[in-house]
């Protein structure tokens, strides 16, 4: 089943063409990676899908319904969760409070919301930091908190914007394990990532964005061998390796 479809999505900011006629389909249960050099338009594309701003042209369809131009909070209620590249925790509040805010998307009662939030924290192995203030978390835990919060809204599709940036190698491995575990539970992922080891290991398919254009799409091994991708992004060394 196709969960998310992007049809010739473009986003222009004045004269800047950040994303140009991008098309992609994400099947339910898949993990799809989006890679590309800095400034390629990856986050812009994510923001279009998440409703931060509407695409200039093109169609975005989620579960068979047109969603382009819808507001972020509506999209969240429809089942699209997201994290931010620059993490945005509710810093003055506890970890549990942060996740409970997300849990309130599925219930209106505080007791129930907190119970669900704790369950999500346990799933992400953050439960022993539940009472810590979000401001005091280390970066790896902040990234996890981003995911936990989005997860608490019970999304069908989770958009992850560089959740591994800034993590140490062991932390990256943990994060890969976390995402795999979540996929087992039925969540579909569309993720932007720069750490190739992780994207290659996680993704069923990868799309490559370069100056707003999709220059390749395919299984990780195909992408790793693709001439244009190597030239534009991976570099000669990666192809040789």
């Amino acid at each position, binding site marked *: 089943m196709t969960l998310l479809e992007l049809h010739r999505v473009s986003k222009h900011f004045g004269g800047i063409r950040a994303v140009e006629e991008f098309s992609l389909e994400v099947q339910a249960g898949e993990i799809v990676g989006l890679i590309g050099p800095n400034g390629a338009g990856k986050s812009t594309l994510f923001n279009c899908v*998440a409703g*931060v701003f509407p695409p200039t042209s093109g169609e975005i369809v989620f579960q068979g319904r047109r969603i382009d131009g819808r*507001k*972020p*909070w509506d999209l*969240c*209620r429809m089942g699209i*969760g*997201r994290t*931010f590249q620059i993490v*945005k*925790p*509710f*810093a*003055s*509040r*506890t970890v*549990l*409070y942060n996740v*409970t*805010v*997300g849990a*309130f*998307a599925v219930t*209106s*009662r*505080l*007791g129930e*919301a907190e119970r669900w939030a*704790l369950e999500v*924290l346990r799933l992400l192995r953050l*439960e*022993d*930091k*539940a*009472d*810590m*203030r979000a401001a*005091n978390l280390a970066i790896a835990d902040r990234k996890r908190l981003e995911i936990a*919060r*989005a997860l*608490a*809204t019970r999304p069908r599709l989770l958009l992850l914007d560089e959740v591994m940036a800034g993590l140490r190698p062991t932390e990256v491995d943990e994060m890969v394990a976390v995402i795999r575990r979540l996929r087992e539970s039925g969540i579909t992922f569309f993720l932007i990532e720069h750490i190739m080891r992780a994207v290659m290991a996680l993704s069923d398919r990868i799309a490559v964005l370069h100056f707003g254009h999709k220059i390749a799409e395919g299984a990780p091994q195909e992408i790793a061998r693709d001439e244009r991708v190597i030239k534009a992004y991976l570099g000669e060394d990666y192809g040789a390796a």
Partner: protein
Amino acid sequence: MNASTATATSPLRPPGSAWPSRAPLLLLLAVALAVPLFVRSATYLHILILLLLYAYLTTSWNLVGGFAGVLPLGHAAFVGIGAYTSTVLSLQYGVSPWVGMIVGGFLSTLVGVLIGLPTFKMRGAYFALATIAFAEGLRVMVENIDRLGPFLLNGPRGLQIPPLELGFGRFMFAEKEPYYYIILAMLVLAVGITWAVSRSKLGYCLAAGGEEPEAAQSLGINVARVKLVAMAISSFLTSLAGTFWAQFTLYIHPKSVMSLDISFEIAFIALIGGRGSIAGPLLGALLLRPVSDFSRIHFGDTLPGLHLVIFGGVLILVMLYQPRGLQEPLTRLYRRALARSAGMRERG
């Protein structure tokens, strides 16, 4: 030491654990209830009534200014709407001020939502300026018209309420004690509402939207709408204080019920006490109101407005050293004392 490191233990706290944090509030309430039995001087009681009034106003303001993370500086407008609505209705149509109070409340809610619609999209100082502009505009308007349709407002001369008929139904008393208990009851109500909101979905959504609006939106929160809901509750409650003020002083004019000074004093109390907390407005009023009354009594002729200068100085110090208000160090001290006594009980 950091508060979070001390509490990083069991995330599953029993539901009854909120109780000790409420104990000081209940103690405060007990003292407040007993005060008129000891304070016989009308002057002091008057000062205490104003203290409770400002604690009430600030608590009402706090729903928007504290929880929603914006800084409204035009709440005097709602005080004015409340005062004028109930007074006009009672003078011209003989409606009980209690009824007028509720009517004024709904009118303020309507106005509050109408102001909120365009302004909640503004950020920081722009929102504050917009609310000041609105409140000042309303005051200038009332000062310059004698009649609004069939309603007599009397421009800058204001309205006098002749104390013809005393009693609860007319919201008019010869002594100050009834006023004291009425405003105390209103304050308890406002604090209760704040407490309920802070533990509800609305409270969580407000806090989230105030701190990181983009993240809050991505979690399913229509930030502008929850702010409007908070504004509706806040303007309603604020308006009730206007009616109280009118019935307490029996004379209202635009300067007395709609002036910018009221809006500023509310914000001062909230910022110094600690916005976004339940205890903050109470603490702020407890500390600042006496300053403002005594400066008015002793320096009213020579240095009018001295209290605002003092508040300004205190505010700078508080913002420098306790940006989350004075409630924070006190809450921390109280928690520590509580933990220590619990530890002693375990050992003993």
